C-alpha cells in the first residue's frame, strides 16, 4: 500500500534521511522505532510531503505522490496525526472534527462524529469544549479523531503515546487495535517499545536516517542482542 523508496530528506542543509526505504502492506500495523533524532518524525513528514524529499519516491497505492501538496496527499487517503497534536485551540472539539471532514471515499470506512465518540468516549463529554482546554490525552484522541474524519485508508501516527498518562495509553492502544481490526493500515512512530508491541506486528528500526531492520517483532525478539543494540538507550 505504501512504499518509501530510497528517499533523502533535508532540513535546510541538514541531511536527515539517507536513502531510507520501507514499505507497509494493506492491513498491517507497523511500528517505526529508533532513538531520538533517528528520523522517525521526518520519515512521516516526508511521506506526507510536509517535508519534500530531494530524491527518491514515495508511492501510495502504486501512485508516485512525491512532491504533491499535502492536501492532495491527504485526499488520496493518507491520514496524518502530528507528534505535537496540533489541535486548533480556539476551536471546539466538534469544530476541530469539522476541519478534518472529507467526503466519503470508496473502499474505506466512512467515519461520523458519533462513531468517533464511540471510539474515544472521553471526547464525547467534551464536544463543546475548546481544544486548548483539553488534557494532553484528550488532545491526542482528538487529533486522531480529526484525521479519521478524512476517512483515510492509511494512518500515519507520530508518537501517539508521548506525554500521556499511563491509564490513557491503554485506552489509546485499545483504540488502535480496534482501528486495525476494522482494516485500517497504520504506520506509527514510537519510543515506547511496550506500546508498539501491543498494537503492531511489524517493526522498522531507524538509525541516523537509514533503515536498520524491517520485519516482524517475533524475528526481532529472536535476536535480542541486535534489538538492544539499536533500541536501548
Amino acid at each position: 500500500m505504501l512504499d518509501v523508496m530510497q528517499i533523502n530528506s533535508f532540513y535546510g542543509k541538514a541531511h536527515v534521511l539517507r536513502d531510507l526505504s520501507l514499505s507497509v502492506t494493506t492491513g498491517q500495523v507497523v511500528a517505526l522505532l529508533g532513538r531520538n533524532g533517528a528520523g522517525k518524525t521526518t520519515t512521516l513528514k516526508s511521506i506526507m510531503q510536509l517535508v519534500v524529499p530531494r530524491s527518491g519516491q514515495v508511492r501510495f497505492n502504486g501512485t508516485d505522490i512525491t512532491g504533491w501538496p499535502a492536501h492532495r496527499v491527504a485526499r488520496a487517503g493518507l491520514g496524518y496525526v502530528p507528534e505535537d497534536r496540533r489541535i486548533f485551540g480556539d476551536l471546539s472539539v466538534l469544530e476541530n472534527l469539522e476541519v478534518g471532514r472529507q467526503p466519503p471515499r470508496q473502499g474505506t470506512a466512512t467515519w461520523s462524529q458519533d462513531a468517533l465518540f464511540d471510539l474515544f468516549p472521553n471526547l464525547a463529554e467534551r464536544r463543546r469544549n475548546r481544544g486548548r482546554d483539553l488534557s494532553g490525552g484528550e488532545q491526542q484522541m482528538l487529533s486522531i479523531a480529526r484525521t479519521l474524519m478524512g476517512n483515510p485508508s492509511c494512518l500515519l501516527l507520530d508518537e501517539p503515546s508521548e506525554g500521556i498518562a499511563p491509564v490513557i495509553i491503554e485506552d489509546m492502544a485499545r483504540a488502535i487495535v480496534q482501528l486495525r481490526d476494522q482494516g485500517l493500515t497504520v504506520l506509527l512512530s514510537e519510543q515506547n517499545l511496550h506500546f508498539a508491541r501491543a498494537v503492531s506486528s511489524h517493526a522498522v528500526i531507524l538509525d541516523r536516517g537509514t533503515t536498520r531492520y524491517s520485519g516482524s517483532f517475533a524475528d526481532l525478539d529472536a535476536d535480542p542482542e541486535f534489538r538492544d543494540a539499536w533500541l536501548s538507550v
Partner: protein
Amino acid sequence: MGLFIAQLLTGLANAGALFMVASGLSLIFGVTRIVNFAHGSFYMLGAYVGYTLMQVLPGAFGFWGAILLTGIIVGLVGVIVEIVVLRPVYRAPELFQLVATFGVILVIQDLALMIWGPQDLLGPRAPGLKGVVRILGEPVPKYDLALIGITPFVALALWWLIARTRVGILVRAATQDREMVGALGVNQSWLFTGVFFLGCALAGLGGAVQLPKGGADLLMDFNILASIFVVVVIGGMGSLPGAYLAAVLVSVLNVFGVTYLPQSTLVLMFVVMALVLMIRPYGLLGREEVAGDPGQSGEPERPIKPAGARVRLIVAAGIALLALVPLIAPPFATVLVTDILIFCLFAASLHFLLGLGGLVSFGHAAFFGGGAYTAALLVAHADSPMELALLLAPLGAGLLALIIGWICLRLTGVYFAMLTLAFAQLLWSLVYQWGDVTGGDDGLVDIWPPDWASSSTVFFYLALVLCVGGILALRHAAHAPFGYALRAARDSKRQAEATGIDTRAVQWGAFALAGAMAGLAGGLFVFAKGSVFPNELEITRSFDALIVVFLGGVKTLSGGVVGGAVFESVKDVLTRFEYWRLALGLTIIAVVILAPEGIVGSLRRLGERLGLLRAPEDGS
C-alpha cells in the same frame, strides 16, 4: 443634548464603512498573515466602481444593487491580485509580500486616474433617503440612520459566516495553523483566495456605501489606510467585535473632535491608539500574537563578515569615483547624486533596524522628517546656522526615536510595525495641523545652506562626507559587539536573554541609532531642497524606505545602500512619465516575483553560480 446625540449618530454612521474595510483587513491578515497595504486601494476602487454603477442602474433598487455588485466586483479584483501577485510570493519572507501589496497600491492609483480622471467625484444621494430627520431639534441625515441600521447586519452576517459555517471554521483553523489544515486535506490556496475575495469585497462595500457621504477621490486609499490600521490594532488583530468597537470609538471621537477641538482631529485617533496599546498591548479584544518571525523565514541567515581587503578596495574606489562626479558630470547630475546619497543613508538606517535588528518599522519617515523639521525649525525660528542645525537634526531625531522606541518596543511583530506607523502619522498630523509653528501644509521654505556651502558642488561634498560617514558608522556598529547582541536578539530573544544580553535595551539603542541616522539624512535633505513639507513624514516616505530595503535585500549588509541608489535613479527616470506610478508599481511587483532575494541577494546568487563568488561552506 440634541447636538450631542446628533453627533453621536453621525459618528456611528461613519463607523459603518470603517468597520467593513477594517474587518476585511483583519480577516486577510488572520489567515494569510499578509498585512495588505493595498486594502485602502480596494476601498477607493469600491467608491469609483460604485459611482459608475450608480450612474447606470436606476432607482433605489439600482442604488443598493450597485453597492452589492461593487462588493463582488472589487472582491474579484482582489482575487486577481491574490493569484497574480501574492501566490508567487507566499513562500518568500513575509515582509516581501508587503512590498508587493505596495506595488498594487501604485498600480491601482494610476488605473483609477486613467479611468475616472483626476477630479473628485460627488457621490449620488441614496434614493428615498435624501433629506434629514430632526432629532431633538438637530438635523440628522436619513442616510446616516440607514447606515447605522445596516452596519450591525453586516457585522452579524460576517459573524455568522465565521462562527457557524464550514468555511468560517476552516478560516479560523487556518488562522492558527495553516500547515495542519493543509495536512487534513484542505486546499489552502483556495482558502486564501476565498478569504482575499471576502476581505476585498468588504473593502469595496465600504467604499460604495460611503459614497453619498463622501464621494470618490484619488486620495482615499492612503487617507483610510491609517484609520483602518488604527481600528484593527485598537480592536485587536483578528477580532471582529473588536474591530466594530474600535470603529465606533474612532468615528465618534473624530466627530466630537471636529466640534470641540478642531485642531486635533488628525492627532486624536493616534493618541487613543497609543493609550489603548499602553494599557492593553494587543488591543481591546485581541489576544497575544504568537510572535512570528518577520522577514526571517526561509533559509537561515548567512553570517555577515567584515569586508575583506578586496571589497574594501572596491568600495574605496567607488567612493573616489563618486568624489569625481562634480568635476566631470553636468550640474544636474551632481544634484541628483546628492539626493541619492541622502536617500541611501535613510535606507541604510532602516536596513540596520530591519535586517540586523529584525525590527520592522512602518514609520521610519518619522525620523527622516523629524530630523528635517528639527533642522528647518531651528533655522526658521532661531536663525540657527546650518552647522548647528545639521548637528542637532540627528540628535533631535534620535531623541524622538528614544521616546517612540520606548513605547513601541513593548510590542513585537505586526503590532510593533503598526504602532511605529501610528507614531509617524501622529507626528505628521502634528506638523500638518500646528500651522503656526510648522507652516502646516505650506511647509517651511527658504532654508538654504550658508554662502560657503551654497554651490551644489560644495554641498555635494558635504553630503558625501556625512552620508558615507553615517553608512560606515552603521556598518561598524553591525560588526561591533553591539551588532552581535542585536543580531542575537533578532534570532532568538530568549537565548540572547539567557546569555545575559538585555535585548530590549539593545533594540532600543538600535532604534535610536537608526532614528538618528535617518534624522541626519533628513537634515541634509532640508538644506539640499531649501524647504521641507509635511509629506516628508507621510506613510509613502516610510514605504519608500521599506521598498528600497526589500528590493536591495534584507539579508545583505549592502542591501539598503544598493536598493536606495537603484530606487532613486529609477524613480528619477520614471517620474518623467505621466503614469509613473503604474510603471513603478509594475516594476516593484516584477522584482518581488522574479528576484525575491533582492538585488544584492540575487546578484550574489548569480555570482556564486558563475563561480565568481564563493558559496558558504556546507554543513552546519
